């Protein structure tokens, strides 16, 4: 079994490295440094670390002011609170103002576990992707997270990075190079393509393995950059494999599936199926139990693949 590391742990460590390299890196948090792992940065650079208390709207505003005077602020909280708690602040003070703020959220999706529905962000991608000019990224493991954090620090413009709470199996090795806006083919295939993000990438690979035994040759794409999305890879997948299944730990509305369907519909329509949360809130439970309850397991992806393939002409 692959080694498991929590992406947020790597986020915290990467921030410290960036802080040593660039004095303009500043970090903000809203009373969650032990959870988002910004605590490491706070320990090493207290003068550049602003734990603003339980005030996410103010955190976003302060970050925008810092950015307008040349700083590179990373603002972190849970995914339910940004964009949920401070959507208008992100909209006006960052997106409309076109300021160079990096919002990195943790604890997205049902894998938050026992804390339950109020803490399980399942609509954050829908909200944040609706804002013009935002770059939106969902890393699939700890290695990709480290690369993504370095990339957004160097990128000019507002960015949103979505991380989860639990440890994730590594799907990459140290040689991996992240490219902004590019899909990554994790596994070649010609019968169907599964496009996955975040927690679901490892599940998609597991599903493809099982489907291979049934003679179904399944391509797996990791789509870390949701915006701007890799249209070329999506159209290519539609043309070459004739069916697409998306997999995300998010509402079916407005996330990866919606974005991919829009592109497929406009370019090369093929049968699609969507592995996502179906218009309900989460609940308390163990992460594995919740993935099972909401149909977000490898077996659910495999089922969606069989169903989509049936509809191929």
């Amino acid at each position, binding site marked *: 079994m692959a080694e498991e590391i929590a992406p947020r742990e790597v986020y915290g460590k990467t921030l410290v490295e960036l802080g040593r390299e660039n004095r303009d890196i500043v970090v903000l948090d809203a009373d969650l440094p032990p959870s988002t792992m910004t605590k490491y940065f706070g320990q090493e650079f207290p003068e550049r670390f602003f734990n603003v*208390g339980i005030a996410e*709207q103010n955190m976003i*505003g302060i*970050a925008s*002011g*810092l950015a307008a005077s040349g700083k590179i602020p990373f603002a972190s909280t849970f995914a339910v609170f940004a964009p949920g708690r401070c959507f*208008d*602040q992100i909209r006006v*003070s960052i997106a409309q103002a076109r300021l160079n703020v990096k919002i990195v959220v943790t604890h997205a999706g049902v894998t938050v576990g026992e804390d339950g529905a109020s803490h399980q962000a399942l609509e954050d991608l829908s909200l944040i992707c609706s804002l013009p000019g935002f770059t939106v990224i969902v890393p699939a493991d700890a290695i990709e997270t480290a690369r993504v954090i370095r990339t957004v620090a160097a990128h000019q413009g507002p960015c949103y990075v979505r991380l989860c709470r639990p440890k994730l199996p590594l799907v990459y090795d140290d040689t991996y190079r992240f490219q902004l806006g590019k899909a990554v083919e994790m596994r070649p295939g010609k019968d169907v393509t599964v496009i996955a993000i975040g927690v679901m990438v490892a599940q998609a690979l597991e599903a493809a393995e099982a489907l291979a035994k049934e003679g179904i040759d399944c391509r797996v794409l990791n789509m870390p950059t949701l915006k701007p999305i890799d249209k070329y890879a999506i159209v290519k997948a539609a043309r070459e494999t004739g069916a697409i299944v998306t997999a995300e730990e998010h509402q079916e509305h407005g996330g990866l599936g919606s974005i991919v369907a829009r592109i497929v519909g406009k370019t090369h329509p093929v049968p699609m199926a969507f592995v996502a949360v179906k218009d309900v809130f989460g609940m308390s439970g163990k992460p594995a139990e919740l993935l099972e309850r909401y149909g977000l397991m490898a077996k659910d992806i495999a089922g969606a693949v069989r169903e989509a393939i049936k509809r191929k002409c």
Partner: protein
Amino acid sequence: MTPSDSRKSSTGTSADNAKAGVFSSDEDLKSIAKRLRRDIVTMIGKAGSGHPGGSLSAVEITTALYWKILRHKPADPQWKDRDRFVLSKGHAAPVLYAVLAECGYFPKAELATLRRLDSHLQGHADRTSTPGVEMSSGSLGQGLSFAVGAALAGRLNGQSYRVYALLSDGECDEGQTWEAAMAAAHYKVDNLTAIVDNNSIQLSGFNKDIMNIEPLNKKWDAFSWHVIEVDGHDFPQVLDALEKARKVKNQPTVIIAHTIKGKGVSFMENNVDFHGKAPDAEQLEKALKELE
């Protein structure tokens, strides 16, 4: 002569001021204010929509800042060491546009394009559209947080610029204003001055009837700010408060400026109808006559 010397000195020459980045004019502030009021009602009248009330109430505050207090260079709006003026009450964009045009940030003729398609002068302040506008605003309650961030950046960078945020009194209804107030005091950002344009009226009526914000001075005091109250239409009082604010250390200062909504135009004064309504042709003519 250092910048701070030149700002303190009333006898400093224009050349000294220009060197220090202080916009200067020998003209009497009152006559500048009157001209700005004419520009405000004219541009809103021409646009057919806009917010005259809260623009007119802030004329003396902004005139005092841009002509006597701020270090700024109209020819170089992004000058790194400029003092930052943040218009948190973004609907009062016309007063800021009138000031910026008068200072030379852009041609005065552009005021006639207010709120038109593709204009540099958007209905609410927009930093991506207008030279000299520091922050996009219009959704109330966000400006003070931005100002705290700008003040912290100056401190981290070892820069001596100051940050001024103009808030509306209605904006003090917003929770975020108080989140920012708490943070500013916590971080002891003494390079930040907030000014509340306390004209007592919000969109749908008098503050006291809609949502009472009083005692406003005690609220700011309780949030550990240094509080100064002035008549917001009296230049000596406003300038004196702004000078005092620069000398307060280890805490931010708020100037509660008691003003009259619609100040300078008799039928707009204290009239809630002119919060967000343009004068018609007849009213514009009457207003301009009063402002001669």
